[in-house]
């Protein structure tokens, strides 16, 4: 492995005559470019969400603090959650879906390249729309970002109780972003089902692709429910309906059910892809196949399935009655079983392996530990009577950050270190990586572990300050210090990502000696991915032919031995010859869909349609905007027709 990593032949990073320039990125339909766009955009949103968290932590560092006002505090914690969930972590996973799924299954692109571009542009515009509330002071108004918590419990979010524009940005922004998720997910589901390379049976798919499939089924279904929930809230706020109006009999439980039917699958939407990534990283750096691949697949499916039947454990404190409480407590405990299976299989993968502690591996191992901690406090929540004590305290904040940060973020960073060389052709710096790793791991524990105690001591979440004599002071200060450590680590990471892009060590096609198809092609891959589509005979195609590893490849069956196998640049030792990797798709006679600007125009139309519904004057700064919606509808209609009849697609 070391020898291939240090080979500095220029052809791996040499350009493949792909078009360049901003316009080529705006009109691109290449899944790899869209993946990079997703990654860069969502990383920037991650920094924004992190900044919001830092402001919250500074405010809470000392008692009776007046660093920020209560109103701004509400906006910051709400936007921190929304930004992290919808604009940073979900799209970061989408960046990996985009880049990796076609490469892992041996395809030239996703099933619907233009829809893929559309999802990205809707996400970008929706993300900007979401944050407009913070920018209103620039237009002479007050900051009016969403301020009622990311789960936006009605009726507190109806116009009666939140008269400002704050929650209008919430209901409209989420419809825009939700649309992007649904479109993207349909695309990935079809891509995985329908565009696999010859021989890539379902049970030979890389485990990451499997988890992407389960995740996207969850998104398509859960997001639909959420879209209706926010539509109903939107109608309440804008057209005077009574869905959540208690004066006319509207039931607060209706919102909670609709929200959490989406909200709990959402938790698995954020963790299942990460489980897939970790399941790719651990075998590579243990030099062993994934332990119990079949069981890993089925427990992933089971988690997705059970994830639909546990939503009311978020609502134990509402008094649903003993039957419902018991049911949801049991189903929640049940979901710990497939999760536990996965944890033990990861340990089994490492057991007896030749482990290399690279940064990617460190993050994956830390993921297992931290996610297990978060899972254990999750099982504590499943005990309904105990949950009554924990509801709305910092204990919940500790739990959710152990699964979101200790789970999703650590896993994502593992994936970044692991796949960055494939995407940019250069390695991230390992020394900086280790600094980043330790700052992040120690920082997150210093930040979030004390929150368990704060919660059990009775500190409620979502308060902007607290009194001096409650015993909260030390642990809050500790958490703030920890959050600054995380920020420092993140800055190191950002620096590493930025500098390695031009100056990192040249990676070569397979720097880690990994086993899946994406490592069989140059880094970065040519625009057409595979010169010839690979024929797949086992789960770990690149470990075939290596007798020391082949024996251990599960289902590395040879029933298709007679088939002639042609692999373009199959292993790290056999990269593309120079002349071929520099050839464009056109030279090779490979049909790729031409670029299109209709995705970005259609996304603009959709965003304007929803955005214009904020038709109330913004503190006199901007006048009625309803005509923007009309413009949006026209633009949407024109783009859909132009899209449908665009030549070459």
């Amino acid at each position, binding site marked *: 492995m070391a020898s291939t990593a240090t080979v500095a032949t220029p052809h791996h990073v040499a350009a493949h005559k792909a078009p360049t320039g901003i316009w080529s990125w705006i009109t691109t339909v290449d899944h790899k470019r869209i993946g990079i766009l997703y990654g860069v955009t969502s990383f920037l949103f991650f920094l924004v969400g992190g900044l919001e968290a830092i402001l919250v932590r500074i405010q809470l560092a000392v008692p009776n603090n007046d660093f920020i006002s209560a109103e701004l505090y509400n906006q910051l914690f709400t936007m921190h959650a929304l930004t992290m969930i919808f604009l940073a972590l979900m799209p970061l996973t989408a960046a990996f879906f985009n880049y990796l799924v076609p490469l892992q299954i041996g395809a030239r692109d996703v099933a619907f390249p233009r829809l893929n571009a559309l999802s990205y542009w809707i996400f970008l515009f929706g993300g900007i729309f979401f944050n407009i509330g913070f920018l209103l002071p620039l237009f002479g108004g007050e900051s009016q970002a969403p301020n009622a918590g990311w789960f936006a419990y009605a009726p507190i979010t109806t116009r009666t109780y939140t008269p400002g524009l704050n929650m209008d940005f919430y209901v409209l922004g989420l419809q825009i972003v939700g649309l992007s998720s649904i479109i993207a997910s*349909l695309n990935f589901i079809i891509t995985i089902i329908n565009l696999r390379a010859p021989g890539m049976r379902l049970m030979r798919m890389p485990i990451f692709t499997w988890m992407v499939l389960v995740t996207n089924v969850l998104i398509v279904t859960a997001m639909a429910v959420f879209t209706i929930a926010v539509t109903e809230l939107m109608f309440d706020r804008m057209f005077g309906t*009574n869905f959540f109006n208690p004066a006319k009999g509207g039931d607060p439980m209706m919102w909670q059910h609709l929200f959490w039917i989406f909200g709990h699958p959402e938790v698995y939407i954020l963790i299942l892809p990460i489980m897939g990534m970790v399941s790719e990283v651990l075998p590579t750096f243990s030099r062993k196949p994934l332990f119990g691949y079949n069981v890993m697949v089925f427990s992933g499916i089971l988690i997705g399935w059970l994830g639909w039947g546990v939503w009311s454990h978020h609502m134990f404190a509402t008094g649903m009655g003993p039957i419902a409480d018991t049911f949801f407590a049991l189903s929640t405990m049940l979901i710990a079983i497939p999760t536990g299976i996965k944890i033990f299989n990861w340990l089994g993968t490492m057991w007896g392996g030749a482990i290399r502690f690279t940064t990617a591996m460190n993050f994956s191992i830390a993921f297992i530990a931290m996610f297990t901690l978060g899972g254990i406090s999750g099982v504590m929540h499943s005990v309904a009577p105990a949950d009554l004590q924990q509801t709305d305290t910092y204990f919940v904040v500790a739990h959710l950050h152990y699964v979101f940060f200790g789970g999703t973020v650590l896993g994502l960073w593992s994936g970044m270190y692991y796949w960055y060389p494939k995407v940019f052709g250069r390695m991230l710096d390992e020394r900086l990586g280790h600094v980043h790793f330790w700052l992040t791991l120690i920082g997150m524990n210093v930040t979030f572990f004390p929150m368990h105690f704060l919660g059990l001591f009775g500190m409620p979440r979502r308060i902007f300050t607290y009194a001096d004599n409650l015993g909260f002071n030390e642990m809050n200060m500790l958490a703030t210090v920890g959050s600054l450590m995380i920020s420092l680590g993140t800055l190191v990471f950002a620096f590493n990502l930025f500098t390695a892009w031009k100056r990192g060590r040249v990676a070569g096609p397979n720097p880690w000696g990994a086993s899946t198809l994406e490592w069989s092609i140059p880094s970065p891959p040519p625009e057409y991915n595979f010169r010839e589509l690979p024929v797949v005979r086992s789960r770990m195609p690149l470990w075939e032919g290596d007798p020391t590893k082949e024996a251990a490849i599960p289902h590395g069956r040879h029933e298709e031995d007679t088939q002639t196998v042609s692999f373009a640049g199959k292993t790290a030792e056999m990269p593309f010859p120079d002349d071929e990797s520099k050839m464009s798709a056109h030279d090779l006679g490979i049909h790729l869909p031409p670029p299109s600007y209709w995705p970005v125009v259609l996304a603009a139309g959709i965003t304007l349609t929803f955005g214009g519904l904020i038709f109330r004057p913004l503190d006199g700064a901007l006048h009625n905007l309803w005509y923007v919606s009309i413009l949006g509808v026209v633009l949407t209609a024109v783009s859909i027709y132009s899209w449908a009849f665009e030549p070459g697609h």
Partner: protein
Amino acid sequence: MDHAHAAEAHAAHPGHLDTTTGLDSRKMAFWGFIGSECLLFGSLIATYMGYKGKSEFLGMGPYPHDGGWKNRAGEVMNHGILDIPLTTISTFILLMSSVAMVLALNYTQRGDRKNSVLWLLMTALGGSIFLGFQVYEFTHFYNEGLTLSSNLFGSTFFLLTGFHGAHVTVGVIYLITLAVMAQRGLIPPAKALNVEIAGLYWHFVDVIWIVIFPLVYLIK
């Protein structure tokens, strides 16, 4: 996907089917879309059923089938707000338009352009008549005192049936577009999938109405 495109796609996947399953990706994606739509409508229907009877229970208006509604002029009506015979007619027309859809696809697959255009337009006509009934119904209800904000029944009824009506509207525009394309000879039998997918959408919109109609209109 025209012939040339299909040939190119075939060249891009040498020695293998165009897709893993041999099914067209667009059709498969449309089934996925319908799955997602089921949850959209399912959530609306769940809201409707969750709130069913609550307006009356809370004294926020009479039962939709009973008299006692106060119209905009302030007169108390002695009949229910829902007109079952009227909506039965529009339901029948919408369901019959599905038959027209089947015929349209059949003629498209056979390459009978004239009949294909005719039945595409007939399908769109059926949908338009249904929409006309719905416009009449909504205006009528509004005049008889049922609005979006009058009570829970008004909110849930208008959002659910309005959401369905929006789907029918999109479908009518979709079908007219296809009819124009077919008239210009842009939908030969090899491209009948275009009509088939429109058919999937149209039948789905009909099936959803078959769920909505009894739940909202027939069950008291």
